[in-house]
Structures are given as C-alpha cells and as structure tokens.
C-alpha cells in the first residue's frame, strides 16, 4: 500500500512518524527547500555586529529592505537573512488575497522554521464544538510531548489552565526585567486574580537541559535562526526520527496541486516537479494532507472541482488568530543595564480568564521584554527628534516590553478560500477574510483588562498595534471536521474521498487562542494513529 503524506511541516512530520511507528511504509512529499546554517554559533546578537564581514547586509539586507521607513507603524521586519517564508513574491505562490495577507513556507519544516516556540495544548474548554474529546487528544499530546522537548515549570499559576501540557525540560532562564515583573506580580497577585489575569513562565519547545549538546546558550538570536538547534524544528528532529525507519522515503521537489478523483476515492496525486516545472500524476492508495491549512484547502478545492464540478469550489472556512500588541514601559526598569545574554523570544506568558460568549475561557498573551532587535523603528516611533529619541530610548531600553494578545477565531460565513474557476488563474485560490464584528467588543474588553493589569504591575502601557489579518500565521479550518462533503469526519477522513485524511490545521473546526503547533502535532498523530489502513 502506497501512503503519501503531503507537506513536511509540524503536521506532516508527526503524521509520517506515527504511520512509520505503526509499521507502514510512508512517502513524504514536499517542496523541500532548506536554509543554510546560521553563522557564528555561540556569538550573541550584538557581538555578531563585530564578527560579520558585512553586518549591514546580514541585518538589513542588500537593498536595506529590512530598514523600516519612517511613518510605517511597523516595529520590526523579518530578518532578511531568513528566507523560509513565502508570500506573493514567490514563484510557487498561488494565492490571491482579499484583505488577508498570508505567509507560507516551502521549506522542509514549514513555518516551524521560524515559530515562536510557545508550546500549549488545547483543553476541554478550547475543544468545545470539536467532535473530539480532550481525553482523545490528551493521549496524542502525551506522545507529542515525548517527541518534542518542552521547557516549562512543574507548577505555577497557569498550570490549572494548561491541561495537556507535559514539560520535560527546566524552564527557560528569565531576564532581569522578567524577574522584576514576576516580583511585582507576586506582590499584587490577589488584585490581578480579581481581574482574571495570571502570569506564568512560558512553555517553550526549547532544549534547556545544560547536559544536552543542543541546549539553549541564550545568544539572543531566536528570530535570526537558532544556531544551536535548541528550538524545536520538525524539519530536523522529527524528520530525522522518520529517516531511521527503513520504510520512509522523503521526496523533495514536489508541489502538490490536486488529488485525482475516482469512485468515492482518489487514485493519484497531481503535482509539479519544482525542478523541471512539469506537471505529473502519480498513483497512490492513501493520502494525508498536511501542507498547512491554506495549501491543504487549495489542494482540496482543486480536487473538489475535478470530482464535483457542480459544487461551488469554496471552502467552509478560513481562520487565523488576530494579534494585538500592547507596548509598555516598566517604570522600575528605567536606567537599568541590559542583560548580556538572554532568550530572544518571550519568557513569560499571561492568561486572561473569563466568560466571553462563544470564545474560550483562556485568552493567551505573551509578555516580552525587548531583548535584541534592530531599534531604529522604535526610535523613529518616539515623538521627539532622532537625537533625543535615541538618547531616551537607550535609557528606557531595559524598561520596554510588549504584551501580544492572540484572539481566537471561529468559522464565520464569508471567511473562506475560493478557487478561481475560469481564465488563466484557474489554479489560484482567493483568500476572503473579514474580521468578525462580534470580536471587537471582546478585544476592547480584554485590552482594557490587560492595561489595568499593567498599571498594577508598575508598567505604563502606551499605544496599541494591530497586525493585518493573515499576520497571525495560525491558519486553520479550511476543511474542518463536521458533516458535509467539504468537511472531514472526527478521524480526519475526508467526507468526499474515503482514502484522504486531513492531517493538519485545515481540520480544526475552531481556533482557540493558545499557540497551535503542539495541537497540530497532536492532531496529526491522532489522525495517523486512528486511520483505518
């Protein structure tokens, strides 16, 4: 039996590994680009400026594309030295956008090449409306946590809200700014609990055990690519585990377009050979779609058009988290010297608890004290001239922080992928998305609570930055679990094609606030484990 898993991101890697563990032979098809290794391991972000031949080229890019021009309201641009992200400039990109600016990746490991490493599980409340119980997911979470090293506390104020989380590594070291904040939290705890606000240590898929060779060395370069491989990357560790099985075959250079329909099943897969640009069809017995919610939705729509031209080729849903950033100044941090080494991503998380209509009880936020970044956009965004802004900024630097809130999403009429049905762009997929109106009251209320909490913590909130729709990079719900031929059943099996499984976030019928990567891995594991092959 020929089983093909499509996509080598976190979902594809865990689906493949689970199938291999069940004793099946597996082919993993992927576009399979890869990044070069990162320069100068062990050297910190700022030290790198002395070590590289052309640091401007590394930090800002040859044409200074990462320099944020004045008046743009952006706090940072993605490092130009990283190129695992794909967007509309990529020749393989085949999405048209309507108010939704998505990102994808054609690299081995997918978007997890640059994820924020926050590892959380969906609990009973997050899974409300799913045809899957928490206990079913939990056994998959346990498997996944055994595969992925996660750093986190044994117990803290958030533990009761974070069921299904099984850290195996000691927590990441806090910076001195984080420590000041946690001390303030301990003092004001009861008032903050009254607001429904809890602060805890981040749960991160990072190796921290100093005995291990790949342990984090706090070089402040997470965003620029972890040179020690401490942050979990499915394209490395999980695919390496797959490669230890004889029945595994990794097939790069293939971009899947659609599935070839037969009688209630598919008979093959249509793909582009990315080397030659030629389109081919190859037969297969079972396919696991794990190309990421956007690509999986697109593949499904093209297959749907081939199988059922009478049905309009649009998906049931399209979801993404709305990300909102609240910058603040921690008054106790003014004039403090910065730490020489730290972990660049957030080391603290915040839970905002409460009943909010259809939304889950837990709203996830990440608390980040600005470590090493390029600072010119922050300096330019201050209300003084460059000279004074620069001086003030470096005095305030250790005091600056930002709380990022991740608002959940649900399947909403109108938010969907639509396949272009005629003309030259027949293979292209349009992404239609509008922020749901009912979310805005929830957002306003939550922001007010976080602001009140920040004041209590001795921090002065300043401004609000909302990312454009699509920037959340938690895409989901394009072929969700449920009834109808555009959906899949509770085991991820497509209701249209009996031998196709939706193994990635496309199958999520709602999108909780919590970071999704661990749930993607757990979902893929559960689907691969229960598939009737």
């Amino acid at each position: 039996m020929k089983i093909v898993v499509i996509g080598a991101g976190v979902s594809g890697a865990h689906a493949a590994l689970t199938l291999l563990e069940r004793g099946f032979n597996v082919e993993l098809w992927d576009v399979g680009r890869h990044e070069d290794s990162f320069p100068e391991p062990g050297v910190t972000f700022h030290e790198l400026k002395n070590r590289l031949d052309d640091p401007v080229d590394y930090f800002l890019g040859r044409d200074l594309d990462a320099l944020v021009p004045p008046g743009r309201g952006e706090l940072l641009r993605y490092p130009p030295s990283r190129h695992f992200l794909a967007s509309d400039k990529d020749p393989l990109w085949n999405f048209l956008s309507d108010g939704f600016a998505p990102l994808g990746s054609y690299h081995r490991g997918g978007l997890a090449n640059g994820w924020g490493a926050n590892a959380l599980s969906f609990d009973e409340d997050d899974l409300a409306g799913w045809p899957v119980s928490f206990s079913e997911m939990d056994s998959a979470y346990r498997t996944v946590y055994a595969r992925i090293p996660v750093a986190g506390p044994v117990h803290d104020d958030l533990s009761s809200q974070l069921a299904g989380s099984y850290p195996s590594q000691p927590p990441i070291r806090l910076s001195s700014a984080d420590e000041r904040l946690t001390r303030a939290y301990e003092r004001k705890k009861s008032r903050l609990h009254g607001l429904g606000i809890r602060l805890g240590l981040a749960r991160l898929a990072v190796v921290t055990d100093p005995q291990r060779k790949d342990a984090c060395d706090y070089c402040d370069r997470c965003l620029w690519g972890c040179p020690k491989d401490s942050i979990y990357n499915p394209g490395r560790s999980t695919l390496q585990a797959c490669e230890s099985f004889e029945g595994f075959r990794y097939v790069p250079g293939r971009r899947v377009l659609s599935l070839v329909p037969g009688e209630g099943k598919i008979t093959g897969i249509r793909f582009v050979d990315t080397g030659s640009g030629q389109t081919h069809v190859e037969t297969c017995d079972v396919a696991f779609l794990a190309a990421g919610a956007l690509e999986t939705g697109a593949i499904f729509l093209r297959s749907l058009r081939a199988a059922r031209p009478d049905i309009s080729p649009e998906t049931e849903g399209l979801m993404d988290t709305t990300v909102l950033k609240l910058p603040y100044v921690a008054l106790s941090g003014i004039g403090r010297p910065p730490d020489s080494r730290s972990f660049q991503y957030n080391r603290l998380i915040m839970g905002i608890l409460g009943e909010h209509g259809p939304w889950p009880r837990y709203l996830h936020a990440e608390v980040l004290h600005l470590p090493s970044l390029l600072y010119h956009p922050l300096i330019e965004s201050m209300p003084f001239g460059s000279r004074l802004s620069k001086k003030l900024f470096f005095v305030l630097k250790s005091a600056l922080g930002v709380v990022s809130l991740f608002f959940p999403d649900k399947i909403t009429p109108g938010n969907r992928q639509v396949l272009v049905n005629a003309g030259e762009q027949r293979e292209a997929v349009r992404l239609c998305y509008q922020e749901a109106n009912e979310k805005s009251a929830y957002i306003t209320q939550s922001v007010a609570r976080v602001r009140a909490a920040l004041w209590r913590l001795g921090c002065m909130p300043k401004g609000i930055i909302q990312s454009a729709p699509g920037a959340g990079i938690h895409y989901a719900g394009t072929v969700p679990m449920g009834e109808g031929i555009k959906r899949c059943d509770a085991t991820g099996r497509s209701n249209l094609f009996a031998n196709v499984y939706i193994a990635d976030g496309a199958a999520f019928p709602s999108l909780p606030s919590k970071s999704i990567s661990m749930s993607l891995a757990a979902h893929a594991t559960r689907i691969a484990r229960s598939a009737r092959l």
Partner: protein
Amino acid sequence: MMMQGPLFPTWQIDEDEYRTVCAYLGISPKAHLYEKLSAYLASAPFRFKRPRGFALFLAGVRLTRFRLARMDQATRLFFPEHPVRHVLNCVIGLHECDGEGYRELASAPAGWRAALAIAGWLTGYGFALMVTLAWLGWNFLAYVAGTPFRREQNLAGKRILITGVNRGLGRDLMLHALEQGAEVIGTVRSQEALDNLAAELPREAPAWLLVADISQPGALPRVLTENRTQAEAIDLAILCAGVKHGGTSVLAMPALRETFEVNYFSTVDFANWFCAGNSRKSLVLVSSIGRWHGMHLTGGYNASKAALSIWGESLEMELRAVGKQHIDIMIVEPGIFESGMMKRSGVAKLLLTSRRDVAKQILSGAMAGKKSLRPPFWFAVLTWAVCLGGRNLRYRLFARIK
C-alpha cells in the same frame, strides 16, 4: 558610483552633510556606511512619498548642524515622512548594525543619573523647540514670499522621452524627471554608455534605456518601434542629444555632415514619427542661443542650431495650418551654463546657471505649454544686443574668441 554628485538632491545628502548628521547623533562617520546610505536614498524617490509644498522647500535646505537640529524637531512634529526623517532613520539603522556604531548609539547614563539626564533632556527639548518654531516660522515666510516665482511640478504618470541621457543636460533632465515621478525613456549612443548609466541608476527607477545612434538616418524612430514604443504613449519628447566639433573648420564636410545629421536631421526624422496620431503631447527642441550668430571653428554647430530653431518654428506653423494644435512645440535656446561641453573658469562659474536648474526650467516650461525658453535670460538679452549691433560688431567680437 556617485561621480557626479547626488542623483536626487531632494533625498540624498553629500559627504559633508553625512558628517554633520553623525556629529549630531554622536556617532563616528564611516565611508562604507555612507555608500550604503547614498544608494538607499537614491532609490527613495521610487519607494517613498514625494514631499510637496513647504516640505519640499525644506528639503532644499543644506544641512548644517544648526539647521539639522531644527529640521529633526520640525519634521518629527509636522512632516513625519520628510526626506530628512529617512536620512536620520537610515543613519541610525545603518550604524546600529555596526559594532562600534551600536556602542556609540547605546551609551546611556545608568541608575539615578538616568532620571537626572531625562529631566535635563526634556527641559533642553523645550528650549530647542522654541528656537525651532521661530526658525520654522522664518522659513515659512521665505517660502510664502517665493511662492509666485515657483511652479510645483508633478510629473507622476507622465512618460517622457529624452535623448542623450548619459551626460550633460540630458542626464539632468532624466534625473529631475525621475525625481518628479515621471517614467523616462532615455536614449544613449552606445551600449557602453547604457551599461554605465544603468549601473548608476537605482534598480527601481522607471527608466527604460535604449541605444540609438542618431547620427544614422532614421535611427531613433526605428529603435523606438523595435522596442514597441508608440508615439501615442509618449507625453513629452525632449530632443537633447547634440554634437559640437570644437576647433573644426566649418568647411570640414564630414564633421559638418555629422553635426547636421545629429543636431538637425535626426529631429526631422523623429518629428515625422512623433507628430502622427492625435494624442496630446509636447515636443521640446534643445537648440542654442548661438543660433542667433555665426561662429568660426565649430564644425557648423551654430548653423545646425539656427536650422533647428527656424525649422521648429516652421513646423509649429505647419501643424497649426493642418489643425494639429494638440502638439506643443517648445524651442529651448540655452546660453551659458554648466553643460559639460564647456570648461568652467573663474568668471564663468559666477555667471553660470546650474545645469539642474536649466533642466527644471525646461520641464516646468514644457508642462506649462511655453513656446520658448532661453536660460539664463540675461545672456539671451546680451546676445540679442550684440546681434542688433550688426555683422561688423559680431565679427569684431566673436572672431577674437579662440
């Protein structure tokens, strides 16, 4: 790269100004970072919003330490996307990538000194702001006073053909047109000239460069047609390429033929192609003030320009007669200016209009539908005065010129 000064003076700064910016920000200037800054600012006209009105007026201010401090405060408050903001932001962005630069930028007082310093800075800011507002008010008055003499140009969406863009007036015309938002089709005589120019221009610049050796009959219309450019697609054509065989007798037939071919017949060739069709457009003929008088040892240059001016006038009459009034003809007769065809000497330097100013005048004149332009005007008046003196006077004056 920057052999001939900044390409786009509204955006770019020269090395002295860069040193001023570094001193102002308390960082050490670095030649390799200045190069990157310059290249970045050269692409700015095609990436960012063009300043207008008073903001544009301020962009013309040469940056001294005092003016930079004023501009820094003023633009942050009133013009957040002003070119000087891009300059300061880019200098900080570049220097923070450099080990030493970052140390210089990041040095800050710590502990209780920080609070004192902040209080001091904010007080200083208040005083400086008062000076800035007074300075800004003064400049605003100067701006308002100059308004009647200034014509704002917006060439956005215009497609302009310019010949001879690799040097001299043609080059300045192209750069100015690009800075004002136009799309330029520029022709040069050789592939080598094209390659050099292309290497100098920022990649984003909407300039299509073509090789056309206009000493060959029919070359320009042929090259344009080969490159699928239609006469209707050009809003403005400026024929600026010219040759002058200095020190060559007016009897030297090969030089004379080439001079007439390039300066005169190529224009007739082009006009035949350009004046067909019904779209609204302008044709600018760059002649010379020398067309009013003869001159020895020029290989027939003055004669060719006289022919060009007279023919241009004739063409305009003819177009009117056949009802083609949608084509404006402007004849430019520049006098003495820094053109790259002359050597600059002491007195000449004082009297010369800058080439960039002449380019500005030609473009704004053409867009306003002017019929003739003779920059600098004082030189035209002088020339006419001499011409009125008759041939004897001209002979006595000009025959002595070596």
